[in-house]
């Protein structure tokens, strides 16, 4: 039994392997977050020393970014569903898919070993000269761990692009691809063209630390701004790797529970690709106050405005889909609606932070922390939970308990807002980020935020409980519990080894099935 799992070629088994690994890393990152929130209850130090606190927020950053947010939707749902959605029996390079999981686990093990041995205290951004010449922590080890896990991202990207191009079933034209597949195509492009720069930068950081070379150290002739250019050239597209799959999931959720095709299909497709491509031109908005030349800041600020337009188009298209739809409010739809609301606030604050005059005050403060948590936790993780509930019946053949799931979604939504909305105010008041102790007048906001964090933790742990229980005791779910379009709902759940009993012939788009008579469950 073990061998069939550890040496499997089946994209569904590999997806389950990824789910296991990702959930462990999410637990570790979440634990670090709760410890930090508890420490921030009081303005002065009470739970952990400042050195431990620095290692905690770095651990939280590294684990959440590289070992949960980037792999969560693409590597688990993408691996599981893309072959099903395009009518293929598997991804085009199944061996490469398995290698990508092993590389991911190996990178994770190295990073976890570094964090276990003593952790890193440079922040997930590894800014020199602190990370290269002043930090006495396992920077090179953690950096190489992340570097190795970067390869798994590249391999997944290659696999998805090639599979979407060449493994589509008969009749599955580009216009009939589900939006989930389109967003993963855009994400894979970003994964492929951005992750190598992360590998290059981490190699530079390691060589600079080990051989005391001076690429980024001014005393030896280098320039720390050069590191920031290279790092953010990867890291901004990386945040689009995290959010684009989330958008794909929400498009599917909204289409499924409104029982109508997504409004403006081609506009949503082109905005996904636009986000992926324009996302590469805007990285300078992370460096407005860091000594970058003002003219470059002007260019980056303007382009950051341009990149926000496709996201706005997508949100309006989701809203237009709700118009005159037949909306039902199962748990995935609650997560989807939550995503649309919170992603709007996150996106708007993103536009604010891209405005130069505003960013000078709020850069590196809790305002930025709140902004990207609204997009990452309010957006990507909300979509991840929605996807988990939407495709749980398909992947396990069992239904989850509906009312408990709805309760969990509401708790998550409330807990999230209570946690992160006060941080907007903290940022405006001038509380810098990564602060172990803070001025006493901010204490009440931090206390509300910590209260919210408790709610958030409940919102995450509760589904873990009832989903795993439903794995064994949930009542049987048929082929298509939600009467959704899309090829994955036409095969049995869980799908057989080669996905489809008879060869698949596609006649209409994924959402056009709605227009015709309902499909027998």
């Amino acid at each position, binding site marked *: 039994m073990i061998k069939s799992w550890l040496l499997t070629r089946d994209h569904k088994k590999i997806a389950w392997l990824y789910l296991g690994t990702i959930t462990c890393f999410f637990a570790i990152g979440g634990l670090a977050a709760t410890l930090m929130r508890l420490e921030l209850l009081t303005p002065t130090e009470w739970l952990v020393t400042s050195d431990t606190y620095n290692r905690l927020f770095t651990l939280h950053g590294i684990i959440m970014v590289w070992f949960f947010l980037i792999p969560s939707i693409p590597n688990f749902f993408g691996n599981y569903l893309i072959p099903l959605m395009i009518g293929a029996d598997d991804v085009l390079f199944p061996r490469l898919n398995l290698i990508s999981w092993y590389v991911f686990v190996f990178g994770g093990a190295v990073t976890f070993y570094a964090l276990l041995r003593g952790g890193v205290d440079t922040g997930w951004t590894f800014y020199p000269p602190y990370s290269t010449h002043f930090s006495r922590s396992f920077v090179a080890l953690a950096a190489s761990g992340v570097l190795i896990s970067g390869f798994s991202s590249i391999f997944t990207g290659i696999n998805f692009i090639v599979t979407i191009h060449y493994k589509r079933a008969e009749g599955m034209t580009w216009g009939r691809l589900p939006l989930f597949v389109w967003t993963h195509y855009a994400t894979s492009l970003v994964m492929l063209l951005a992750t190598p720069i992360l590998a290059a930068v981490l190699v530079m950081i390691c060589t600079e630390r080990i051989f005391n070379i001076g690429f980024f150290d001014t005393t030896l002739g280098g320039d720390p*701004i050069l590191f920031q250019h290279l790092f953010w050239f990867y890291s901004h597209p990386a945040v689009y790797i995290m959010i684009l799959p989330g958008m794909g999931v929400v498009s599917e959720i909204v289409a499924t529970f409104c029982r109508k095709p997504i409004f403006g299909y081609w506009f949503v497709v082109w905005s996904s690709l636009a986000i992926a491509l324009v996302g590469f031109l805007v990285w300078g908005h992370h460096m407005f106050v860091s000594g970058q030349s003002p003219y470059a800041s002007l260019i980056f600020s303007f382009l950051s405005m341009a990149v926000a337009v496709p996201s706005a188009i997508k949100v309006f298209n989701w809203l237009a889909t709700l118009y005159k739809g037949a909306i039902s409010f199962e748990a995935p739809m609650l997560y989807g609606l939550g995503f649309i609301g919170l992603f709007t606030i996150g996106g708007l604050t993103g536009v604010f932070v891209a405005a130069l005059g505003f960013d000078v005050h709020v850069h590196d403060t809790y305002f930025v922390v709140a902004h990207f948590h609204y997009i990452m936790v309010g957006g990507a993780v909300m979509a991840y939970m929605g996807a988990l509930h939407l495709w749980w019946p398909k992947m396990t053949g069992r239904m989850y308990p509906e009312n408990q799931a709805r309760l969990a979604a509401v708790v998550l939504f409330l807990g999230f807002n209570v946690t992160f909305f006060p941080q907007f105010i903290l940022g405006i008041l001038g509380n810098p980020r990564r602060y172990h102790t803070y001025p006493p007048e901010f204490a009440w906001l931090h206390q509300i935020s910590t209260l919210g964090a408790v709610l958030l933790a409940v919102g995450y742990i509760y589904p873990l409980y009832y989903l795993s229980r439903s794995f064994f005791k949930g009542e049987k779910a048929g082929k298509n519990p939600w009467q959704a379009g899309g090829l994955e709902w036409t095969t049995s759940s869980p799908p057989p080894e080669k996905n489809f009993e008879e060869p698949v012939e596609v006649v209409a788009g994924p959402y056009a099935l709605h227009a015709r008579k309902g499909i027998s469950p």
Partner: protein
Amino acid sequence: MISSRSLHLTFAACLLLLLLTTAVAFVDLGAWGLVVNLTISGMKALLIGMIFMELKGDKGLSFFVVVLSFLWPLVLFGFTFADYLSR
């Protein structure tokens, strides 16, 4: 299919270009030296790409990938130098 004759020709052309690059390097062209250097290496790269890697007759999407992967570093270089030149 690429004929072996054109393979030999490409190899010879690459060697010639190599000699040319080294010869040009002995002449002090100042800032232009870099430009000449890169164009000649670019020509060699084009030759190897087209003939050895058979991009010439390729009907698939490989050509699209090549163009994209040369475009991306230009974006990185362009915006980083936009900062350095106007600092």
